[in-house]
């Protein structure tokens, strides 16, 4: 029987180990069930929006086949811009509960900053976060894993059995590395199995992102195995090893991420939203006061859009006012986007300060609930607003109805997913980085245990 098999057999004899594994399975199952429920809810909401929007669009098209229409009638409650629910949402809720996934674009409200709505949510729940699969994998998996492997040799050293084992010719490095692999394998296998199982249940199938996610989880598990090995190499007692492992968990999963958050928000503070709304009102008040001047200038610049007699109605004035507000506010909105993008850049740059950050970012990215996909949605919505404006604005100014020939040109939104190579690049680099960190932890262990250090280990 190999050493690996022996370790496995010994481990499964411990009732505490079985209890830990059972608890971990329960946690994984609960995380998956929660993720599936969230994904299903998102899908239902998206389906309802799509059905409502396509029914309305069909009515508009049918009406246009028969007669000309006032553009206002074609606008309805706004053109729907929808971020489709991601296929692998079960993996990580990410920021899906915080960021709006749909927006209705209404021509005369494109400058309203609060059009994108999120559902009702209890803020205490938002603060706490969801019990999803990513929570189990990033927060609980290392805790469970460390509980199984924190004592690789210290306990044996205290009881004297380590000396016996080493005296039988097994090298210290081999003994500890096989032991950590044997004790870490069942828990890691469960974590990997959960990712694959969740992908199958969630309808994502065994796609490349799923395999990358398993790679990230595997690398993350290896990192924590390396931490356990490191703590065993440099401590004398099981209690000290547990202390070091526990402290490492707190530092990597709690302290460094919260510190990074502080650094990110201090280095690139967001402009004030309160000032934004006040400035928006100042800009709108100013534009409204100058509405006559604005509409006259507009028609001077665009004589081809001027209505008969150059007499603008309320809506035409409003469009001119809105364009002016947009001009005044665009630099402020851009400042928000730029600061957030800069914050994200800092996170990307420093994510390897803790493998928990790198792994969480990667899982959210692969799940389609991270920063980049929402950023792409926001950018595309901004472009869609321009398209809506460019299509309808001339019609309103010239008081032209919509006709049958306009049907193919009616604005509609279709989200373009980010290039998969970009997602793969980010997540594979995260995986490689976590593996590198694991190796970094293993290096001092290998050095300590390879230089005929069996004696050091025992003493």
């Amino acid at each position: 029987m190999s050493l690996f098999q022996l370790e496995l057999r010994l481990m499964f004899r411990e009732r505490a180990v079985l209890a830990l594994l059972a608890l971990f399975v329960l946690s994984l199952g609960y995380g998956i069930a929660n993720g599936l429920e969230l994904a299903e809810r998102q899908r239902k909401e998206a389906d309802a929006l799509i059905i409502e929007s396509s029914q309305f669009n069909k009515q508009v098209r049918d009406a246009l086949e028969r007669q000309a229409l006032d553009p206002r009638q074609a606008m309805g409650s706004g053109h729907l811009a929808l971020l489709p629910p991601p296929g692998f949402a079960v993996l990580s809720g990410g920021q899906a509960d915080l960021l709006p996934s749909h927006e209705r674009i209404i021509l005369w409200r494109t400058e309203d900053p609060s059009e994108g709505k999120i559902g009702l949510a209890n803020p205490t729940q938002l603060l706490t976060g969801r019990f999803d699969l990513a929570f189990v994998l990033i927060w609980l998996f290392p805790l469970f894993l460390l509980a199984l492997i924190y004592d690789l040799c210290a306990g044996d050293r205290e009881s004297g059995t380590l000396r016996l084992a080493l005296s039988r010719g097994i090298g210290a490095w081999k003994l500890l590395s096989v032991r950590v692999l044997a004790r870490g394998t069942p828990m890691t296998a469960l974590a990997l199995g959960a990712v694959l199982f969740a992908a199958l249940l969630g309808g994502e199938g065994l796609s490349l992102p799923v395999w990358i996610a398993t790679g990230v989880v595997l690398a993350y598990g290896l990192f924590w195995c390396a931490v356990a090995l490191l703590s065993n190499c440099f401590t004398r007692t099981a209690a000290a090893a547990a202390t070091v492992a526990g402290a490492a968990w707190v530092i990597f999963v709690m302290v460094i991420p919260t510190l990074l958050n502080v650094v990110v928000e201090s280095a690139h503070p967001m402009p004030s939203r309160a000032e934004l709304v006040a400035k928006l009102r100042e800009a709108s008040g100013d534009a409204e006061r100058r509405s006559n001047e604005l509409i006259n200038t507009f028609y001077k610049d665009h004589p081809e859009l001027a209505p008969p007699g150059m007499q603008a109605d309320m809506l035409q004035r409003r469009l001119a006012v809105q364009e002016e507000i947009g001009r005044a506010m665009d630099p402020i909105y851009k400042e928000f986007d730029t600061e957030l993008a800069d914050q994200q850049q800092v996170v990307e740059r420093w994510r390897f300060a803790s493998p928990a950050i790198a792994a969480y970012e990667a899982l959210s990215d692969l799940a389609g609930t991270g920063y980049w996909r929402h950023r792409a949605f926001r950018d595309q919505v901004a472009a869609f607003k321009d398209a809506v404006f460019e299509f309808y604005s001339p019609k309103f100014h010239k008081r032209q109805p919509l006709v049958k020939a306009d049907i193919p040109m009616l604005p509609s939104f279709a989200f373009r997913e980010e290039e998969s190579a970009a997602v793969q690049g980010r997540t594979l680099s995260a995986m490689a980085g976590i593996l590198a960190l694991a190796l970094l932890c293993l290096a001092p262990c290998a050095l300590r245990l390879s230089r005929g250090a069996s004696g050091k280990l025992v003493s």
Partner: protein
Amino acid sequence: MILTIALKELRDTWRDGRFRIGGTLLVVLLIVSGVLAWQQNERTRAERDAATELDRRNWLEQGEKNSHSAGHYGLYAFKPTAPLAAFDRGVEPYVGSSVFLEAHRRNATSFLPAQDATNMRRFGELTASLSLQILVPLLIVLLAFGALAAERERGTLRQLLSLGVDPVQLVVGKFLGIALALALLLVPLIAVGAWLLSGTGEAGDPNLTRRILFLIGAYGLYLGTFLAIAVAVSARCRTGRGALALLLGLWAFNCVLAPRLATDLVEQWVPTPQLAEFDAAIAADLKKGIDGHDSRDVHLQKFTQETLAKHGKQNVMELPFNFNGLVMLESEKFSSEVYGHHYARMWDQLEAQDRATTLTGALAPMLALRTASMALSGTDLSQHRHFADASEQHRMEFMRVLNEDLMKNARPGDHGYRVGRTLWEQLPPFVLAPREWDAVWASVAAALGILGAWFAGSFLWLYMSARRMRLEVA
């Protein structure tokens, strides 16, 4: 005897490398988090003050217009910084900080700070409260797991007991020794923090000192509970290793697993209302009342007939006031009642969720402490509701004044009626009154009760564990 044991334990703890390293790290984190939170609070306050001033100026300088049009122009109410947000930011990043007050509609607060942040927020925020809720208990575990179990392993416990040392005195001495070491570390920080915080608080919250004292009490109960449990576990476990494993498990359950598990389970039991249903219910109820802007509205036509009959007139132009103003008043009154009813139900539901989560503190004391900490810091859901309801009251009063002006001062049928700055100045800026202590107490009482029960229970268990040690020499 207790004092001797306590002083010896204090000396040992003070010399312990774990205490020195962990304690130093903790102090640094507490200071850094305190300073950063302070800066952030000051920045938020300055930004909010600037925005309030700018919005007020916009309101006053909006120019002459119909008073009801001014209602549509509306204004913003900005949420004041919570009294002790520098200590515990609570749900502040997850609720809006401003609300647009306008005619006919009650808007939800908008702009959640967490929406303007990266995914890193999911790891939590570095605040003094988080450090005290999570990191200090971990330090307690690391300091206390070996208090008695290690003595047992070394054989010195048996010697001590056989010399006639009372186990209860021994256990209490150990508890006091570690508690004193922690107190030497934390009390100066708490004193400075409390002194600095007592100088903050907007609108002169008269309960600030009381809030701070209760906060100190709540955290004292929580940390005392943790220390009593840690020493009791150490008294019961055969080895230090076993005590450590068990205590780390308890810590992980309390600080990592329980918060998410509890809020998730509560969400299953008391589901959050769906936005689509919430909006649809409001829209359906609004249709049952007067729509002041739709002349074909049947309710408006009925109301017109009733008003004419009441005044014995044939035409609204003959009425002694501007009928449009009356319609706007009635329509606003009705819609405010509809919004009030639905929003109250929604808030009740969310508060019921929070109450249920607090009750799960019976299984994990951090959940009770978190509720108490947020409520006493003025950063919980109920405080946010207080702001939302107060701003709605302000909106209703605002609209009443504007619509009454239209009704009383505009001539019947006068569509060119205009008012200006004199009226705008009559409408005061929004000021949020501090929450009554009774209301704060209602949010916090159950949580403090649970923490008190944990404290008493843990000490009883500690006492029983000490009594049990007598058997070791017998």
